């Protein structure tokens, strides 16, 4: 199988597998975040469980980091290889005649998502790692109450940050609009199920990022009022 993953198709399959993993993670992340809109207490409890469970912290979290890094690194490697497959560009190329903008610009939407992840890590992940692993505070408490919901609301006070998150989620939507069905195509999905897959892909690509946008905007206005 080692040779398989060195082949062009093997690399496509590796990209698709990491994409499936990341899309599953995104769904799980959304399912937890949406709780913050409906029930802050439940959101706090679930966040505390996710943040302190040993299997998640020491088992799944490193896998997730690897999955993210792998997807980006492999994406860059494939992009560079693909660029080198055409040394001289066309003087005139009518890409829109035969393919969607989203499918042709996965590298750009991907880079924007990478930039967003850096911001997101600075906002949430680094402080979380600092509290738990540097300061050694695993209580999840601040002034005797769970801190997670409060921290979330605080982050969305700034309209600039909310704007940045909204833009990032729109780009995530564009990335997923091609990426979802593309991952299945790479795994050899058959034409018979193509229409169903496309519909599920569109629904996923629109609903999940839109949901994240709603959460960010909700907390921005909810906190102000």
């Amino acid at each position: 199988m080692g040779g398989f993953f060195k082949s062009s198709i093997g690399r496509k399959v590796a990209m698709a597998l990491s994409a499936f993993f990341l899309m599953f993670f995104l769904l799980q992340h959304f399912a937890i975040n949406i709780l913050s809109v409906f029930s802050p207490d439940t959101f706090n409890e679930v966040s505390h469980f996710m943040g302190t469970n040993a299997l998640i912290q020491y088992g799944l979290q490193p896998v997730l980091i690897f999955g993210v890094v792998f997807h980006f690194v492999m994406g860059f490697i494939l992009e560079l290889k693909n660029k080198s497959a055409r040394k001289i560009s066309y003087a005139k190329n009518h890409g829109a005649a035969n393919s969607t903008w989203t499918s042709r610009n996965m590298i750009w939407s991907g880079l924007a998502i990478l930039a967003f992840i850096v911001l997101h890590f600075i906002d949430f992940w680094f402080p979380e790692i600092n509290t738990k692993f540097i300061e050694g505070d695993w209580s999840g408490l601040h002034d005797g109450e769970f801190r997670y919901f409060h921290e979330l609301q605080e982050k969305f006070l700034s309209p600039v940050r909310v704007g940045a998150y909204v833009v990032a989620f729109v780009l995530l939507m564009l990335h997923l609009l091609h990426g979802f069905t593309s991952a299945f195509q790479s795994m050899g999905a058959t034409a018979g199920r193509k229409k169903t897959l496309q519909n599920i892909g569109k629904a996923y690509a629109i609903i999940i990022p839109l949901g994240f946008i709603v959460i960010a905007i909700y907390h921005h206005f909810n906190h102000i009022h």
Partner: protein
Amino acid sequence: MNLTLKIWRQKDANAKGQMVEYKVTEISEHMSFLEMMDVLNEQLVNSGDEPVAFDHDCREGICGMCSMYINGEAHGPDRGVTTCQLHMRMFKDGDTITIEPFRAAAFPVIKDLVVDRTSFERIQQAGGYISVNTSGNTQDANAIPISKHAADEAMDAATCIGCGACVATCKNSSAMLFVGAKVSQYALLPQGQVEAADRVQNMVAQMDLEGFGNCTNTGACEIECPKGISLENIARMNRELMKANLK
């Protein structure tokens, strides 16, 4: 109609090429694109200039020789046709038409609009065949029952003429539609099963060796293919390669 043509001129494989502008007049809308190129070349020869080199052979859409990237699209703006089947009625009087060779590192330019597509032949030689005894006692192919569905799909894949429009139009210069079609036409038939695993592994290895890019599923190849080869063939090739590696 009167047209302005911007054509890639390159003396030979090692020369540095450039776009050169020409004017052609009184072009009939009933002409094929290649006939329009013939008019231009006659004009160039008469004025003592070097004619534009371009590939062509059957001029009826089945040999896959004519290439050309016309106004940013492989085989021009029409669908399901090769350049020889592209009619001048697709253009308007006064238009400027950009004509370039198929661009890919694996399709180096030989001269002007002529590119070397022998990389496709080497991929075919790596596995695009079945080994049968042809010494006179060949078994009748119809003796093996084949479902109508499989026969139709194999025939659809086999209509690939190996023109290279898929590579030319792909933003990654990927040859996966071509290789997918060639793998599929045998993978779907019982005669192709014996060598199925070796075939897909060897053809994909040769494709990678030739320097084609990787498919990112934009679907541009399927749209520009003059024979309407479906993306399903790429998915089937992916399945075949995974299957071969799990053996």
